[in-house]
């Protein structure tokens, strides 16, 4: 269930890749970029994520100037306050301001989202490149290892590792990435295999180019689109996983706010104050939605297999 690549089967009505006017030759990247820009909904989603990232980074500033609360400031007398003038989105069980905590929570969700995906790409991409390029026993060995990692149901791996490591944003990213890299590795390896035997590679090798040079300067750029696509679709999945781990009590602990752990405590009180459950849940939903829509738009624009 933890997204292992099954989330990528979408077509947005506007992004159908048929019947576009063919332009004169343009580099792959600029053509793709232009196509992306034409996708209105995708761009809106992208901007949403960007704005959220800015908010997350400037959280302390916002807390100071806009909400006037620290995320960990308690005020038992304001316990369970519904949204009102003093607390725009209400307060939780110890009187902490929900809006401020949501803003700081974005740091965790987006931070872990991007970092985990980045790690997945680096490790998975690296392994995939090596396995695809060198082939034979290197390939066998690496891919068997990938099989092993992918055979353990992800959630169990997460549970075990969360017990092992003290969970903070960094270790959480590592933990989540340690499962997803396998999928990326397989993907990249597949691409490398299909690119490997093309003429330009054979030609480059025949003039004596070294392995590293070949991998980095020739294979990698051709494999990059697939990596970009995997990245864009992965962020949403990681955010969901991170929230689920927090919810189960395995991720970030209070008082550090994360959308997931705001929900785990809110669960206890949701008969009492349902809005504590609604706001963080909506944030997760909107963010993942935007990430997925933008990810789909990126895929539609950049995936060489869709051309």
């Amino acid at each position, binding site marked *: 269930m933890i997204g292992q690549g099954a989330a990528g089967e979408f077509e947005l009505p506007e992004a159908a890749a048929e019947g576009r006017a063919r332009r004169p030759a343009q580099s792959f990247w600029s053509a793709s970029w232009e196509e992306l820009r034409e996708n209105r909904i995708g761009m809106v989603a992208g901007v949403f994520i960007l704005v959220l990232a800015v908010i997350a980074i400037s959280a302390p500033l916002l807390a100071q100037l806009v909400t006037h609360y620290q995320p960990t400031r308690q005020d038992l007398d304001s316990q369970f306050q519904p949204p009102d003038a003093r607390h725009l989105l209400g307060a939780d069980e*110890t009187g902490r301001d929900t809006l401020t905590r949501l803003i700081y929570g974005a740091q965790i969700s987006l931070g872990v989202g991007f970092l985990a995906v980045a790690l997945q790409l680096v490790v998975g991409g690296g392994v995939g490149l090596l396995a695809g390029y060198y082939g034979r026993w290197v390939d066998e060995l690496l891919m068997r290892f990938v099989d092993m990692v992918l055979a353990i149901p992800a959630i169990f791996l997460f549970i075990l590792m969360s017990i092992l490591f003290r969970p903070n944003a960094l270790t959480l990213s590592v933990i989540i990435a340690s499962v997803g890299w396998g999928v990326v590795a397989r993907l990249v390896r597949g691409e490398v295999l299909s690119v490997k035997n093309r003429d330009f590679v054979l030609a480059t090798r025949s003039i004596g180019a070294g392995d590293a040079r070949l991998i980095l300067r020739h294979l990698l750029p051709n494999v990059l689109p697939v990596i970009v696509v995997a990245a864009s679709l992965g962020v949403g999945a990681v955010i969901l996983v991170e929230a689920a781990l927090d919810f189960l009590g395995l991720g970030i602990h209070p008082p550090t706010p994360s959308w997931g752990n705001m929900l785990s405590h809110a669960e206890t009180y949701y008969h009492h104050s349902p809005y504590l459950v609604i706001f963080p849940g909506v944030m997760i939903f909107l963010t993942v939605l935007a990430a997925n829509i933008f990810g789909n738009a990126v895929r539609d624009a950049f995936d060489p297999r869709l051309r």
Partner: protein
Amino acid sequence: MGRRDVSENEFADFERFLNAWSRRDFLRGMGGSLAVTTFLAGGMELLAACGGNSGSQTSTQNAKRGGHVVEGNPTDIANLNPLYINDVYSQTIAYRLYDALLSVDNQASLVPNLATDVPKVSSDGLSYTFKLHKGVQWSDGQPLTADDVAFTYQLMYAPEWKGAKARYRPQAEQYIQSVTAADPQTVVIKTTKVFAPFLITFCTGTSGTGGILPKHVWEKLKPEAMPSSEMNNLPTVVSGAMVPVKWDKGSQYVIKRNDNWFRGKTYIDQHVFKVTPSFVANANLLKTGEIDIGIVDNSVWDDLANSQSVNRVAFTRPSYDYYLHNLDGSRTPKAAIFGDSQVRKALYTALDKKKIADKVYFGQATPADSVMSSVQWAHTTPKTQYPYDLAKANKMLDDAGWKKGPDGIRSKGGVKMEWELRTNAGNAVRETLITVLADQWKQIGANVATKPVQFPQLVTQLSQTRDFEMILLGISENADPDLTQNYKSTSIGNGALNGSGYKNPEIDSLLDEGVQTVDRSKRKDVYAKIQDILMQDLPTPLVTYPKGLWGISKRVQNFGVGPWTQYGARPWYKDVYVSDGK
């Protein structure tokens, strides 16, 4: 209308009155919380006086035979064998299946069970003689005799049964000299020394142990085979009010009426113990009728009052939530901070226990004022108290030489005032409580990090390894006020509860005196002294006395839970019936 129905109506009216108050004040968010608490506190006295559901006034005039009750709890059973019981839920079920020699009532007084009377201890204080009821049968028809009783106790103290690893073996070996079956109806237990809590601890089941096992079944096993025997959780032969039917692991445990029970037949046919998601969910399940009985979380208590089909019962429990300082320098460097008694007093003074009781417990708790719960007969309110006073707490620390640094955190002699406070994960009240405590201590310049830890690990850290800095825990007390496990210097490590490593020779000798004195009023004086000293030393300050909050479906009658009859001991059980007979 029976007397019972009248008091029930009064009860219901009073509840509605309380609710109107509490909700109004809640909405205003004002200091009406003080009024509410006063009302609630007073209300409990009133209810206790009315007899409410105290179980001493059960009426079975209109009792219908037949039907079932469903009791909900968020955990599955662990072990139902009285030799091994370690949690209250298993205890609740086990003592429907097994009987002990005695039991307790809602005032923590001993009442007879398998024994015909509560024995008076012999003049030398070492010998107890029990006369058993005649004609008691096991569920397979065999007679229950003194041999079974002797056998059960031997499993705990006799050397040849050491391999059975009974939970109370250390205490049994320490206190039981011999258990003999003088004749099939008479048992004589001799203790090694005078031990006032003996009957409560070993003969009632309230500590877990005390239920009598069938000798003819269990003597066939090798001692080493006992801890893992299937009969622990699905006993084949029992003597109690009910017999086991089935156990759907993780889901439910079902028991049904034992027609051979020596007290007669229970009115209900079956009692189902269902595993529910949480105490919060219990409120929901009570409303929808999926369960009939269950403990309810504080946060949904008020809301449950709206239900037309559920009665609520609240009472101060024999329990408390408290925190331990680790005073052992060999286990943690933080002992340097806590070793200073001014620091401990300042920390306690900085806690607004009233507000905590109102907010964190939703008003369903009272601030603690001693080292044992207010329900214990030995409870006194020591003169030394620590009312909330932030300014005073700050001054105490200033005077003691703990200066605030530029970051607001105090330090003295190079030691910064910061530590980690742990509690058991999964308990919302405790997890919230540690963040609140950390925040209140931040006001006096202490930097406290909080960490929820899984319960088994926490218990290990408390009772074995003692490698914590500060722990917040809850204690459910025994019906005896003995505090040896908590404060005696011999109770450090080895699985006992003196996790802070508190050593006080005066307390040690007072504790001994407490268990060796049989006369209750003399004992009370001893424990008064103990409470005075401990309130001055503050090794483990108590925060609140939480209430027990039970929801009981209106169709269930005579379910008389009270402070001492929540779990194993339920002397009113035989009168429970369901008004619709279903």
